[in-house]
């Protein structure tokens, strides 16, 4: 068993259930937006693809479209749960964040959940999607 010191306990990231679901909803919404971007890109490529190859692209387009809808649905679900939940009960977010191996995602969620986002200082710019 690991016993946290007072300092560690105070610095632990333990946001409320409502906040946690709201942040999760925002991240799923972002993933959905990336799918929509991909969907539009595949749509543009369709015009350049030879007729005999087009079937594969149509399948890919449908798969991405389905994924976008999937994520939109999950985001709406998380948003609704968050709106109806309380922040009186906290989540063990810090521990759960360790399971996220994508550094930028983990940092962004840490910041949104009340911790320190290491990339928060980047302030502005023109469109630079990926």
């Amino acid at each position, binding site marked *: 068993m690991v016993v946290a010191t007072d300092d560690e306990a105070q610095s632990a990231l333990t946001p409320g259930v409502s906040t946690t679901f*709201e*942040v999760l*909803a*925002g*991240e799923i*919404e*972002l993933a*959905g*937006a*990336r799918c*929509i*971007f991909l969907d*539009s890109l595949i749509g543009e490529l369709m015009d350049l693809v030879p007729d005999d190859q087009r079937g594969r692209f149509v399948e890919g387009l449908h798969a991405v479209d389905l994924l976008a809808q999937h994520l*939109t649905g999950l*985001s*709406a679900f998380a*948003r609704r749960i*968050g709106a109806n939940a309380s922040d009186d009960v906290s989540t063990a977010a810090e521990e759960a964040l360790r399971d996220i191996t994508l550094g930028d995602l983990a940092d*962004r*969620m840490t*910041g*949104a959940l009340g911790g320190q*986002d290491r*990339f*928060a200082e*980047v*302030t*502005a*710019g*023109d*469109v630079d*999607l990926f």
Partner: protein
Amino acid sequence: MQFATRSSNILIVDSDRASLEMLQIRLTVVGYHPSIARTGATAMEMIRHARPAAMILELNLPDMCGLEVLEAIRAGGGAPIRTMVIGKRIAPEAIRRAIELGARDCVAKPFSGAEVLDRLSRMLTRTAPPPAASSRVVLV
């Protein structure tokens, strides 16, 4: 009055990186030209440099309140910028003040990208002028 179009430059001001990137992608895909700022000071600088057709403005910015950005724009004169304010648990008083300062719409976080796009599109095509500087807004 000149209508803003899908090719319009839209300034998104938000310190929440997920929300910012999500809106940036969604606006780009449908043909808008979004610019982004994560602080009020940066937003003010960008507005001075190139006035956007519309702005999506988070009220809770790290360096100042979004209302202060609206106040500075109004104080600076020139044409008002069609503004949609966004934020978590926005107090009715803040919404009222934002509308008095020229905001045209208000969307509570967390939101769906589709909802923001829909309301942005409606805001850009609406012809009614914002309240005059001396108008007092009453929420009912």
